[in-house]
């Protein structure tokens, strides 16, 4: 990993049990930012820190990207650092591979989740495997940014959650940020990583605001670690990306009901920080996992399976998954039905608690 430290900052530990909002005592370098703005600033710092960092994507130049994540970066760093690419995702990723071989650290923007598939071969057969193929001679410090997930009322292919494909692909790292602070630090950590990183941005949270310590350098929580956002002793609730905020809402609602939920923001999907999840589940004995992606073969399956392996004797109930259905992402009018929400997650909480009225009854009937 290339050096990445610009100052001393509060220890990551102080974040570990705080909420995703600002910690109580706001350090000097802290500013209020949207998640989108935090990414923009993180990219700017990465470009400024290392000449080898390049941005490559569709409409990222003058337009600043359709979500404005690269707003003004071409103006500031010029068209050779922030490059509008022809409209072809395999071309973007494959060109980035060549740039990486030449020593660059390309950051590719995929405009929407559903447009990553034309680049799939270059990602899984090249980006993921080149370090292994060359027995370590070639590194692939490529970051692939993907605005992902639904809830924005978009047309087809604009609301997908393809993270499980990449988490199943050896050689890749997969992360997702859920709040402005993590967006700011994690994008810089991803770019500084010598491994390829799929960086999933929760597009429906782009405009969520929060306090950001912009100088959180080496002291930031490492990119591969999960964060306990809220402690609790009754149920462990694992979420990432867009559903972290929902998970916190669930915890608040459950608290009113006397149920103490421990909320974990997974942050890294490959590798999963099972140590953190395991110690939580050994405490609570109950696990609920939520994501927007389809249930079959989603991240929830891996987490449920691994935690069952690690915590079998501690589990009071089968881990429950609250996910998108095994359907294509639906049209906007149906996304409310499709997306995990407060009620569906609370229902699963009831289920792992063995409460009446939960779907446990349905399961038994099925």
């Amino acid at each position, binding site marked *: 990993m290339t050096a990445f430290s610009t100052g001393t900052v509060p220890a990551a530990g102080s974040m570990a049990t705080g909420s995703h909002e600002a910690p109580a005592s706001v350090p000097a370098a802290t500013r209020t930012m949207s998640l989108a703005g935090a990414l923009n600033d993180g990219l700017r710092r990465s470009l400024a820190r290392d000449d080898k960092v390049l941005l490559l994507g569709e409409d990222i130049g003058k337009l600043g990207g359709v979500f404005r994540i690269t707003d003004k970066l071409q103006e*500031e760093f010029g068209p050779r650092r922030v490059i509008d690419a*022809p409209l072809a995702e395999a071309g973007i990723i494959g060109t980035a591979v060549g740039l990486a071989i030449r020593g660059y650290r390309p950051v590719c923007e995929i405009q929407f989740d559903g447009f990553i598939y034309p680049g799939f071969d270059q990602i899984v057969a090249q980006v993921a495997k080149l370090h292994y193929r060359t027995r370590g001679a070639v590194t692939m410090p490529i970051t692939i940014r993907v605005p992902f997930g639904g809830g924005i009322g978009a047309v*087809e292919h604009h609301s997908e959650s393809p993270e499980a494909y990449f988490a199943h692909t050896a050689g890749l790292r997969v992360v997702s940020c859920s709040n402005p602070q993590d967006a700011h630090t994690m994008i810089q950590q991803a770019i500084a990583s010598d491994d390829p990183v799929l960086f999933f941005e929760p597009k429906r949270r782009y405009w969520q605001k929060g306090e950001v310590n912009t100088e959180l350098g080496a002291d930031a929580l490492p990119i591969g670690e999960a964060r306990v956002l809220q402690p609790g002793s009754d149920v462990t609730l694992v979420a990432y990306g867009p559903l972290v905020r929902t998970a916190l809402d669930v915890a608040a609602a459950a608290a009113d009901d006397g149920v103490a939920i421990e909320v974990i923001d997974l942050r890294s999907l490959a590798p999963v920080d099972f140590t953190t999840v395991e110690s939580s589940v050994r405490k609570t004995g109950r696990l609920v996992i939520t994501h927007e992606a389809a249930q079959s073969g989603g991240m929830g399956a891996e987490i449920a399976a691994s935690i069952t392996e690690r915590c079998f004797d501690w589990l009071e109930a089968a881990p429950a998954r609250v996910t998108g259905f095994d*359907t294509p992402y639906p049209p906007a009018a149906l996304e409310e039905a499709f997306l995990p929400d407060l009620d569906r997650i609370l229902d699963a909480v009831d289920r792992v608690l063995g409460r009446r*009225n939960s779907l446990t009854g349905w399961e038994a009937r099925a």
Partner: protein
Amino acid sequence: MSTTHEGTRTHEAHDDIPVHLSQLEDVVQLISPTGERLSSPGFDPWVDDVSTEQLADLYEDMVVVRRIDTEATALQRQGELGLWPPLHGQEAAQIGSARTLRPDDFVFSSYRENGVAYCRGVTFTDLMRVWRGTAAAGWNPYEVGMATPAVIIGAQTLHATGYALGASFDGTDSVALAYFGDGATSQGDVNEAMVFAASFQAPVVFFCSNNQWAISEPVGLQSKRHLSDRAPGFGIPSMRVDGNDVLAVMAATRIALDRARSGGGPTFIEAVTYRMGPHTTSDDPTRYRPTGELDEWRAKDPISRVAALLESRGAMSDELRSRVEGKADAVARDLRAGCLSIPQPDPMSVFDDVYAEPHSGLERQKGQYAAYLASFENGHGDGAEGGGAS
């Protein structure tokens, strides 16, 4: 900010894109921007039969689809549609090509060919479904001879090639016509479609609406050459026509269709036109469009030149004007009514049509979700606020 590549000798910044590519040069034109009927020996015979009445019909079509565009944009602004991709400026390219097709031909389009859909007979309700967010696609492709639009850029060109191959296997002379944009030409799929179409000599027409922009990217970023120059290298003859000239588009499409029907294989048409509106209603073109460019193209408007030609033929009567206005008004009304009439889908329909045959996994999820929804009626809904004993 220091960079390591000052003084690089080979790489040129994008703002050096040759300006001529955004100009109307090397194009076939049968109607000048001021409405003169120009002659072009290779193309004239293909539109000789277009009478003044038919020209008036084409004029009507163009006015109508522009009105569809205006009305849909208004509906979007009023919150009735989630999104709309305007075709403003591309009326001649869409009408001139779509009106040459037979019902048994098959169209494969992108999201922007709503004028084509109108020509194919798609109902206004069906036209609005996707943009109102109630369905992934609006119409039954087989009823109108038009596939549901592709959002994945370029994917439909391969579908058109496969369909065309199938149509030829069936011994018919139906043709598949694929619409796509200038940006799409950079996608592997579009190039592979040309490879497959040429190899199989499939009866497919590749219709590229070069509207100068792929969202914020000018066509010169996709190609240093005319897009029509690409196809011959694949063994596919191509034409470059003024896409704002309904007759030129019509002639080129007829040439291509005729070649396809008579076993001559694929043809590539580049229709040089201009996206006068934003990419979609979500876009802000002032962030990237050079000043003056829009005005330049306003002077080449596809509708006004037909109006001028009709005028010069003494056919632009008050009667025609009011017929066309009346039709456009009626269409706008029907469009709005069609849009507002679209019902919200039932939540349980989220499970419909994923598979053609029963699927145990999905049936189970459906059952669970139904039970979950039913549980609200049984008082589970307030479980959140303490419905169950722990």
